[in-house]
């Protein structure tokens, strides 16, 4: 009997030895090993549980990561400009109807094939007429009247009416014709090539050696899916992850000295989106009252640790060409004014309303909670309805069966049009049922005009229209916090929802 405790101690120490033992010898787990291998691990909160075919990808998180794999004839720059990518240059005809693209010599796909004009025609046609189920059609392509390749290196596109934003749509990914594995083993022309995907685990990409442009610095990037933000923080601290974007402020504050926090702005507009077709929000005065009753700075302070930039309309500051700063403080916080407007609208004692929030976005839930508190001051009782993302899509976004919702709305490309098009009264994705004849007329004018300055002015007026009529309670463009392990550099921010890793490198 007396030997027992001794045996136990021995067993316990053996266990300890095994568990702690070869902890440091395993490769790839320590940041130093990865630096030696010129590889990094990126933590992402959302799996790429979507088609990897860029013409079918629906989820913003998938597009964000696959930005490294695909390119179009043109590609965006961090400044919000467009530069030729697979095309080497282009000409626009006098009447602005015909675009002639010359293809860059010898651009290679990741499978070793060379990009030909046929591939370009195939890719554009594929996104024009959705012959395959699942393809997300590019609306702007419906105005193409003629599309042909006079020779191997040239593509000519003719439109039925001028569209000054047409080039933005030329960022549509070019894919090899006749390759049918895009859904699961995508092939593009970008600086990184796709290697593998393990569901709810990892996505691996490697540097594409035959890239036409400046090659990527890193040899390998592994995306590690960690959906829980506390867990993500632990993984950053343990040394398993080197880089992580969209980090919540609470987690960013807890990171130690091993990391640098880079701050950019997310390309989306967070707002309390109001269903303009249902009572009481069909009354403009009620919507304005809510705007006046919203202390946006307090939202940033309480729910975002002070990060984020305020907005006053459906445009975010990084689209600086279009962003109108004067709209930001249109509705300065004023409870008395809000009460007066409510009384005028026939609600002197306030009313009750519901805010539907997608529960997978804690930042939107937090915002809704702050709003609920703030609206008590004007007698408005808020009930928060947290719903799953799919329910949100079905009921709020497509069904339009809601009173109000807190969410972020982004743009699919870097044009004002992508942000503003949806609020036309007849737009299919006008989920807030905004109806303004002035707005519709302005939009028609804006897309028809040839003059860039005039168009920018028209888009400005549209933003003003949204603000004046209080289409929504606009809040902010949230900050995008990126944790980067010390020793790494080259994180770039785009006015788009993308994570460009081609510039990321270990400092010499």
């Amino acid at each position, binding site marked *: 009997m007396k030997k027992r405790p001794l045996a136990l101690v021995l067993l316990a120490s053996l266990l300890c030895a095994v*568990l*702690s033992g070869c902890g440091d010898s395993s490769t790839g787990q320590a940041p130093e090993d990865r630096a030696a291998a010129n590889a990094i691990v990126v933590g992402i909160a959302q799996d790429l549980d979507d088609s990897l075919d860029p013409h079918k990808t629906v989820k913003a998180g998938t597009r964000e990561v696959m930005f490294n794999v695909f390119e179009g004839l043109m590609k965006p720059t961090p400044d919000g400009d467009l530069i030729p990518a697979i095309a080497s240059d282009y000409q626009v005809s006098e009447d602005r109807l015909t675009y002639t693209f010359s293809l860059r010599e010898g651009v290679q796909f990741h499978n070793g094939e060379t990009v030909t004009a046929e591939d370009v025609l195939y890719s554009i046609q594929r996104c024009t007429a959705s012959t395959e189920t699942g393809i997300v059609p590019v609306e702007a392509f419906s105005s193409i009247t003629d599309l042909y390749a006079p020779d191997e290196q040239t593509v000519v596109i003719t439109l039925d009416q001028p569209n000054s934003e047409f080039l933005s749509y030329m960022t549509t990914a070019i894919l090899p014709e006749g390759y049918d594995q895009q859904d699961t083993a995508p092939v593009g022309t970008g600086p990184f090539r796709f290697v593998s995907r393990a*569901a*709810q685990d*990892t996505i691996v990409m490697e540097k594409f050696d035959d890239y036409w442009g400046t090659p990527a610095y890193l040899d390998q990037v592994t995306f590690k899916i960690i959906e829980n933000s506390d867990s993500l923080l632990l993984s950053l601290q343990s040394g*398993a992850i080197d880089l992580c974007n969209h980090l919540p402020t609470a987690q960013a504050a807890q990171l130690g000295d091993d990391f640098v926090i880079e701050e950019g702005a997310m390309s989306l507009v967070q707002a309390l989106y109001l269903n303009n077709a249902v009572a009481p929000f069909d009354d403009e005065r009620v919507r304005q009252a809510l705007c006046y009753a919203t202390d946006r700075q307090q939202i940033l302070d309480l729910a975002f640790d002070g990060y984020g930039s305020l907005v006053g309309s459906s445009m975010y500051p990084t689209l600086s060409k279009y962003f109108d700063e004067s709209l930001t403080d249109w509705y300065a916080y004023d409870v008395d004014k809000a009460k007066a407007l409510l009384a005028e609208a026939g609600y002197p004692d306030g009313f009750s309303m519901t805010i539907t929030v997608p529960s997978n976005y804690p930042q939107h839930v937090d915002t809704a909670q702050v709003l609920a508190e703030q609206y008590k001051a004007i007698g408005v009782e808020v009930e928060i309805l947290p719903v799953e993302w*799919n329910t949100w899509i079905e009921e709020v976004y497509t069904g339009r069966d809601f009173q109000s919702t807190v969410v972020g709305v982004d743009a699919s490309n870097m044009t004002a049009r992508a942000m503003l098009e949806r609020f036309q009264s007849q737009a299919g994705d006008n989920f807030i049922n905004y109806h303004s004849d002035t707005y519709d007329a302005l939009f028609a004018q804006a897309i028809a005009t040839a003059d860039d300055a005039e168009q920018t002015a028209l888009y400005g007026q549209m933003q003003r229209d949204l603000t004046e009529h209080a289409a929504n309670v606009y809040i902010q463009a949230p900050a995008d916090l990126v944790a980067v392990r010390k020793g790494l550099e080259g994180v770039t921010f785009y006015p788009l929802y993308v994570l460009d890793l081609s510039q990321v490198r270990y400092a010499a």
Partner: protein
Amino acid sequence: MRYAAKRAITLLITMVAVSFLAFAAFDIISGDPATAMLGTEATPERVEALRAELGLDRPLLVRYGQWLAGFFTGDLGTSYSYGQPVWDLIAPKVGVTLVLSLMSFVLIAAVSVPLGIWAARWGGGPLSGARTVLGQLCMAVPPFFLGILLTYLFSLVLRWFVHGSFPGFGTDPVGTLRYLFFAALTLAIPRIAMTVRMLGSTIRSELGREYVRTAISRGNDRSGVLRHHVLKNALVPVVTFLAQTMAEIVAGSIVVEQVFAIPGLGRMLVASIADRDYPVVQAIVVILAFWVVLSGTLADLINTRIDPRLRLGGGA
């Protein structure tokens, strides 16, 4: 043997019932795979087209029948989200969750049985209060928080494992086992506390029974009585309890896999429910149900070994 056969048939019926319930549940809850897949790009026409392509426009029973037929011929279908065969997606995860569950089960059994006996023999005494407090504490801490605490200690302070770099059995089996151990520990701690308490009180109540007094008064020594008579009687409810624990482990693994970033079935299940990825959900539900029902069946078989009277149905 007839008893075993009977149990096998019950098992099969349970599985089919579970799979049907899971299938039917999706018809009741809101959210449709087609809308989930199309997201903000969903238009009524596109949703309809996709529903037709996925075969979702057919009645529930037809779809279930087709799924069942596929299941019995080894075809689990194709994931809506990933566009890959379901089995290819989940195969690597089955082993991970299985090892995690088994590991934590072994931990529970190996630690709590001796501890429970010890607690029963030395029940009372000055330490009993402290023991109760410790036990209550272990049971009360939410597994998510416990996981974070253990990670903090073993990964950030002691550096015994690197949180977030699960190696996988293919690359580093030993490292994988080591990684899983800490997750298994998180799962095991509250259940060890429960099992110890349960075993302790069962033994104590057995010790108070007349046959024990008789045995001791006949001159048998205390530990002999405990080992040969009391334990045998106390074991039946404990085995049943441990089988239930297996089900709890499987459920708990969902949370623990998230905390420890382990690519197992639990995380996959949560994600595919959110995505309305029916084929994946069905497959995982069936595997987990099989696992739980099987451990219950095994427990019953073991109990009939310990106490053959149960075979007559009187003990149920």
